[in-house]
């Protein structure tokens, strides 16, 4: 009887647990399952109608709703009915927006949608989940190398088949996404192949070229680079002028220099440190290689980049030995390894003066440090090159909702969504439509900032530095600037603020008005988009493939230090003390026993 009761109770518990996991879905709803990095998609602070002029969510009696002939709903804030600049819209989480979009898209078929949204902490966790075969997600979002690894292991399905629906979306994605990353022959994604499952060391070509490229399996979402951010006001850097620091930090060599020993932290992540080390180890070889190419020639730039990528992706035994020795040098010079504290330490400004950082984190830190501590942080992408990384959407092999998953990817790459995600996450979106460019210009362009001042073009020009990001908004690496003088917004050359500009603006931060120098935007722009002249030095880092274990073992050796001599002495002294005490106790007991025995004998007498 009790057994039954227990079983019933257990079932009840299990039932409750499994119900807590599912959202309020009825049977007829199609559920789209998404697995993403944590905090990597727009999440509204509330759900409701938002007015940009009021800067708050409106109560029901504060707005009116209008529905036009096409069934589109628009809102009007009663307080700002005449204000043309006021944007009033229904604000909700990105996933909720997607469901609303899909419901409308498939209204005629009578389909209803719902979603399950989960997050993971590292791409490896996601991979583990896929490998154990228990996940049934329709869409995942992981880094470039992980996509590569997943293709090799057959965990992903190709994105597009021949159907009209798929081809339409492919075209739409091509229009929306930057050619620099995706869709063209010269795009980064279209030149990365999955590695063979078991290639030999003497294999000339470790890639499986018949399976297609990264572009066939994944669509970029956000991207960034690995660089160094540094704080000239750090107390250890007082002996250097700003120019000296800028000069120093324009090269990876600085991280090995005695002069900044113990003042910077590096990432506790093998891939990021590997990128630094490999470029340092093969520095001379790369310099040699540079001589063979004519950097005025776009085709040569592309060819050079491919050669560099090959060097960048070496992980044979000899390379690992060199890299390991190099990393040890780097470690000894560094303050320490950080997991997530680097950017906040930079903002607080006292603990470290420099940090090996991802561009998106740097962009965030530059702004935070300026507004919170009035500190100027600079981001530098060293001239020896670096790692460019992306995170991409892909559809796992196990998904049986290919069509809707693709709809999701398409939706996320649309201009509006790209902007709100970019705004929320802080990384650079892969979408390169005009709207995104305008959004970027709103932040960074002198002309937009000075719109109301009625300055002449000459005056504006005097204030600004041209910053060329046409490669991203227009095309690929071979779109090197032809005529830097003829810059204009349409061509995606931004009139950036000069780094040393003294102009300021007033911004609302945490409900308070605060003066913010425009120079902060000049620095943010330089971290968010690499300079066009550096593109040929940026490489994507492959998955380590079969060398993964060797690399991890190498990293383990880098991460440990042998026990220092003083610690060994301490241990020895302690061990000696323990031995001494134990011997004393034993002798003491023996003596005690002797005395006791004597007493017993004397008593007996």
């Amino acid at each position, binding site marked *: *009887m*009790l*057994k039954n009761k*227990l079983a019933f109770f257990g079932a009840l518990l299990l039932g409750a647990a499994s119900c807590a996991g599912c959202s309020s879905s009825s049977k007829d709803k199609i559920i789209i399952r998404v697995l993403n990095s944590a905090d990597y998609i727009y999440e509204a602070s509330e759900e409701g109608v938002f007015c940009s002029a009021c800067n708050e969510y409106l109560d029901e009696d504060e707005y009116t709703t209008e529905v036009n002939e096409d069934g589109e709903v628009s809102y009007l804030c009663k307080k700002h009915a005449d204000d043309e600049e006021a944007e009033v819209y229904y604000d909700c989480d990105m996933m909720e927006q997607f469901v609303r979009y899909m419901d409308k898209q498939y209204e005629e078929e009578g389909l209803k949608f719902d979603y399950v949204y989960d997050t993971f902490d*590292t791409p*490896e*966790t996601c*991979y*583990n989940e896929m*490998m154990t075969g228990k996940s049934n997600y329709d869409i995942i979002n992981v880094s470039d190398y992980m996509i590569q690894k997943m293709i090799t292991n057959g965990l992903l399905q190709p994105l597009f088949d021949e159907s009209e629906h798929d081809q339409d979306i492919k075209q739409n994605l091509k229009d929306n996404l930057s050619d620099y990353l995706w869709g063209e022959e010269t795009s980064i994604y279209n030149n990365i192949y999955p590695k063979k499952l078991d290639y030999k060391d003497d294999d000339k070509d470790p890639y499986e070229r018949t399976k297609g490229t990264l572009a066939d399996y994944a669509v970029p979402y956000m991207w960034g680079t690995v660089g160094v951010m540094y704080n000239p006001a750090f107390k250890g850097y007082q002996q250097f002028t700003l120019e000296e620091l800028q000069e120093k930090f324009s090269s990876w060599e600085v991280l090995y220099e005695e002069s900044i020993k*113990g003042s910077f*932290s590096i990432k*506790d992540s093998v891939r990021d440190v590997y990128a630094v080390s490999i470029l340092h180890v093969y520095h001379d070889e790369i310099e040699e290689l540079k001589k063979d190419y004519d950097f005025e020639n776009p085709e040569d730039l592309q060819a050079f980049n491919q050669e560099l990528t090959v060097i960048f992706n070496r992980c044979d035994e000899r390379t690992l030995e060199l890299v390991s020795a190099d990393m040890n040098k780097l470690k000894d010079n560094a*303050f*320490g*390894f*950080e*997991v997530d*504290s680097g950017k906040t330490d930079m903002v607080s400004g*006292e*603990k470290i003066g420099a940090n090996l950082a991802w561009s998106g984190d740097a962009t965030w830190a530059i702004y935070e440090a300026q507004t919170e501590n009035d500190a100027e942080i600079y981001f530098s992408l060293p001239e020896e090159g670096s790692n460019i990384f992306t995170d991409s959407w892909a559809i796992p092999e196990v998904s049986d909702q290919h069509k809707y998953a693709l709809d999701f990817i398409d939706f996320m790459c649309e201009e509006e969504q790209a902007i709100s995600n970019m705004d929320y996450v802080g990384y650079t979106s892969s979408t390169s439509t005009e709207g995104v460019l305008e959004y970027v210009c709103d932040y960074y362009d002198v002309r937009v900032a000075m719109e109301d001042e009625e300055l002449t073009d000459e005056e504006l020009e005097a204030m600004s530095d041209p910053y060329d990001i046409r490669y991203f908004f227009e095309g690929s690496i071979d779109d090197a600037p032809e005529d830097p003088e003829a810059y204009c917004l349409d061509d995606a050359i931004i009139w950036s603020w000069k780094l040393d500009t003294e102009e300021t603006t007033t911004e609302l931060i945490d409900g308070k008005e605060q003066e913010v120098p425009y120079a902060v935007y000049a620095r943010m722009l330089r971290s968010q988009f690499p300079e066009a002249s550096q593109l040929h030095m940026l490489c994507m880092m492959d998955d380590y493939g079969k060398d*993964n*274990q060797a690399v*991890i*073992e190498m*990293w*383990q*050796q880098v*991460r*440990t*230090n*042998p*026990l*220092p001599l003083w*610690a060994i002495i*301490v*241990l020895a002294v*302690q061990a000696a003390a323990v031995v001494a005490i134990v011997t004393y106790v034993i002798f003491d007991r023996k003596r005690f026993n002797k005395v006791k025995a004597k007493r017993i004998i004397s008593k007996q007498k």
Partner: protein
Amino acid sequence: MKFKRKYLAIPYAIFLSLFVIIPIGLIIFYAFTDASGHLSFDAAKNFFSNKGNWDVLLVSLFIALEATALCLLIGFPIAYFLANKKYNKNAVLVMLFIMPMWINFVLRTTATRDILFAIGINGGNYPYLATLIGMVYNYLPFVILPLYTTMLKLDKSQIEACADLGANPTQVFFKSILPQSLPGIISAITMTFVPVMSSYVISDALSEGNIALVGNFIYLNFANNQWNNGSFMAFVLLILVAISMFATKGEKEENRGGLW
């Protein structure tokens, strides 16, 4: 069917098998198989052939030993005074010592890091010192509590008899107080030594990543799909736990002090 008292053990038996026995079985399974699931000693070979593993094991042992010793040195007198009604009339003081445990230890560690920075002991310059301070701070309550409960039960008359028979204070301590509180000391050691060895959040944050403990490496291996190697490391740790358990086995269960 009649209700028997042993049925009350069912929930715990389920818990035990789900969260203790099965996981340990899995660890052992993965430790001695290869990626394809066949019996293999590759993970063991990898573990013992890599010098980094020996280093990390030695460093972990050192940190764990020192942290435990320091905790005992600090915790023993505190527990002794707390157990004395003269100084601690209504056990409020005990609460004060336990109070840090009310705050999440990650938060505490972050705060410790800032404080250590402020007084100049940062993990970049003094990784061992900073880590030890953090470990002692975090595990001190786990030493004080079991010691305190044992001390409450100290046989006062034996101590008095000891003194009456001419033992000086040192002798009283070593001949009477220390032997009596041995059960508390042993449970205090098991409460600190093993957790310190496998913890890595504290050492990561306070040593600025300059000290890696076994826990770091287990995580690193699992995070990089090296399940077999990671499992073998966990297995080694398990052996160490077992050894420390056997070493302290002499004490009878009911003599054990401690709340756990």
